[in-house]
């Protein structure tokens, strides 16, 4: 079946972009929309033209690499489904499919449909983990976890880090993403020790880069991992508590640590070796 594709082309972050129109003559219904791009790219390469750059990897909905706006919706026409699993069968012959990169201030375009989503990992870097050093863990059975809690933690942990929630949000907010991680770790007994410091640090880092959540709720249908709005309530609740703890002086601030300031201002991936924090353990050597 014949489809018309309007695709965003942009050489690099600095260049202006534009839509270009292409035609694919023999799309088949069971193809994914990424396979449709493969087909178009094969055509372009045969003609000696630059193929369309797009991120993808697992092609089975788990790595979170893929992510483009299709007809104005993150990932495409079907709710809760990543681009790699959206199928051509949702289109009729002659339809126009518009494909452009995720649009969000925190996701600058790198080329064509490829955007830089490292701002999401900055949020994780600020606290989205449990600080247990290798070899320091107790026997796993000493931490029984209620089955329902484990299931709920798994629900939240399912986030694939694609950024569709941000792209869907009129404010470009990342609350669904951050909330999913906060809720996952807060649900488990292991996550309690750092619970409030974690959320405070993640939220303040997030607010430096992303817009503010005003509860539009557009993120939920766009989310391919089924993350629910309740994680945002969770995030807000824990953040409020963290602020109260801090006011009462119950919460040490990690802000004074130079790396955290650097993390906020970037370039976050580079760290200056001379500026490394001294490992306490070194002192006993």
């Amino acid at each position: 079946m014949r489809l018309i594709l309007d695709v965003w082309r942009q050489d690099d972050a600095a260049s202006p972009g534009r839509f270009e129109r292409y035609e694919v003559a023999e799309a088949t219904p069971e193809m994914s929309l990424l396979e449709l791009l493969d087909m178009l790219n094969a055509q372009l390469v045969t003609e000696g033209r630059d193929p369309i750059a797009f991120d993808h990897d697992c092609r089975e909905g788990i790595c979170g690499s893929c992510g483009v706006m299709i007809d104005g919706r993150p990932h495409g026409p079907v709710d809760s489904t990543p681009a790699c699993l959206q199928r051509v069968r949702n289109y009729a012959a002659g339809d126009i499919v518009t494909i452009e990169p995720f649009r969000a201030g925190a996701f600058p375009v790198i080329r064509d449909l490829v955007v830089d989503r490292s701002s999401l990992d900055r949020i994780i870097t600020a606290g989205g983990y449990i600080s247990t050093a290798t070899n320091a863990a107790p026997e796993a059975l000493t931490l029984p976890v209620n089955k329902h809690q484990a299931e709920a933690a798994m629900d939240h942990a399912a986030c694939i880090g694609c950024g569709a929630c941000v792209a869907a949000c009129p404010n470009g907010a990342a609350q669904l993403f951050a909330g999913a991680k906060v809720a996952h770790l807060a649900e488990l007994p292991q996550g309690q020790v750092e619970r409030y410091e974690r959320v405070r640090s993640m939220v303040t880092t997030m607010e430096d880069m992303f817009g503010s959540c005003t509860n539009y709720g557009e993120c939920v249908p766009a989310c391919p991992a089924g993350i629910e709005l309740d994680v945002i309530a969770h995030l807000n609740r824990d953040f409020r508590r963290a602020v109260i703890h801090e006011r009462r002086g119950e919460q040490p601030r990690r802000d004074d640590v130079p790396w955290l300031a650097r993390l906020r201002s970037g370039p976050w991936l580079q760290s200056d070796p001379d500026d490394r924090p001294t490992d306490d353990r070194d002192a006993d050597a």
Partner: protein
Amino acid sequence: MSIDLDQRRAIGDEIHGAAPTGDVKTLWEEHLLNLRLVNPANRRKFKVIVVGTGLAGAGAASTLSELGYQVEAFTLHDAPRRAHSVAAQGGINAAKAYKADGDSVDRLFRDTVKGGDFRSREADVHRLAELSVRVIDHLTALGVPFAREYGGQIATRSFGGVQVSRTFYARGQTGQQLQLAGSQQLLKEVGAGRTTLHTRVEMLDLIVADGRAVGIVVRDMITGEIRPVTAHAVILATGGYGNVYFKSTLAKSSNVTATWRAHKRGALFGNPCFVQFHPTSLPLSNEWQSKTTLMSESLRNDGRVWVPKQPGDDRAPGDIPEQDRDYYLERMYPAFGNLAPRDISSRAAKLQLDAGKGVGPLRNGVYLDFADAIERLGRATMEERYGNLFELYIDATGEDPLTTPMRIAPGPHFVMGGLWTDYNQMSNVPGLFVGGEASFNYHGANRLGANSLLSASVDGWFVIPWTVADYLAPRLGTEVLGHDHPDVVAAVADARARVERLLAVGGTTAPDHYHKELGQLLTDHVGVERHAEGLAKGQDAIRELREDFWRNVRVVGHGAQLNQELERAGRLADYLELAELMALDALDRDESAGAHFRSEHQTSEGEAMRDDEHWTSGSAWATAGDDGRPVRHSEPLTFEAVPLATRSYK
């Protein structure tokens, strides 16, 4: 065509894995005592490169970083979380023995040695089983939401090829949860300023000076800049090369470049022909399908595999009565039935397909039927157990496994082969460590389900951080190489020249086209079943394809930008070389073992026949000398704790 092996390869000296000898149960503990240590205050004086941030790489990088080493981690992905470990579904094995079913460290050890068809190193496998216990503790502490029983204990299930319940899982997304835990630890270290993470940076070459690994050459995938990074040691954790078949269960960016370039710089490549075909992949439905999706093997716990007894039976599955169905796994392997190991199940499926009993529109699958389990357990339980797998299947095929049996087929999935390493996970190039699927030492000729997340975790978190220290300790006071060192300059020039050469071919054919052709050649000649003549033919055809590639490939665009065609072409160029070695290794190994089934070597019942007298060994290949023949070294293997026996799943 001549099969004369001696014209194709040369034989080198025996090599040894330097595994300590003695009682296998205490080897690792004793070995730890003998490993040299680096004083905590001195660790920051060492710089270690970790390539790959999958389960193995993230584990090694974060642990070394916690210990105080300067770590530089590299991934070609835009975020560490996206490494292909994220796609593992079924689970991770550990000898926790949480059930009263007779499991133990020794049993996991024995199952792994037997499962690998006696082609792995006993000492390494025992260590794997021992450390599995710590891995689960660690992952739990990191917040992996393992499935739980009502009492709060961690749940386990049994997985292909074993009779005990030792597989830990997080719904059907175990790999995702492990990978997230690993990458979060890595980002924690980035935040702490102890690790520098480089995303969208691809390793193009290894730098070797004075016989030691001293750095890597990388390309920034956004700017195209090619530059060296030097260090005291290099760890490769770059995953498996199964995607050489083009249609595999691996992610599209999976590649062999890092390990293959290291091989070209002197690292031996172990057992390249040992490839596992997963019996529960989705059958291909069209030419544009970009990969074969894996349906987790855990489905075989509750599904029954069958085909119609009559070839060409066109009836809908529901219309085929019991007496016209052949539940061939249950028939051929009554003790294990539908849980028979992967290699056996894949070959059994291929037999049915070859006999014309395939099902589905293209007759390229077999049924996996849940009707009995649904009756026994109810729909709700089935949905709870396999919900997301069923969704994946419905999405791909438009059919609901709760009402119509699934269709499955064998697909390339995992490589047991990889860079040769000694007991310390160090290659024969000092300073070059290898872990996870990129290495070769645990799984022999066939990997047990749920053992690979385990080996990646064990290598990354619990082995390499200890053994790297042993290598570094005596090197205290040495400086990393300057970028003006002639060996560094030469390696960078090589990498640049290679990229330019690819761009300059100026042919007419896209890299993907060659990749598909290569995949077909491998599937035909180096697939589920191999024989000498086909392998020789395959090897020659691969070489011709490679020559054609270098004459006619077209890489559009230029090198100083994000250029995905260039990335594909570069990885494919290495695959075209690796593939030839895979065929040669399969031709050379004149026996059947595990997943390597040579049709010349089978019993009267069609089972794999090992040749223990000549082939109780691993093959470690060195690159071709001037005469063009790769050199095969053999590592003799001994089996003391688990005596050699014929694998039987009858």
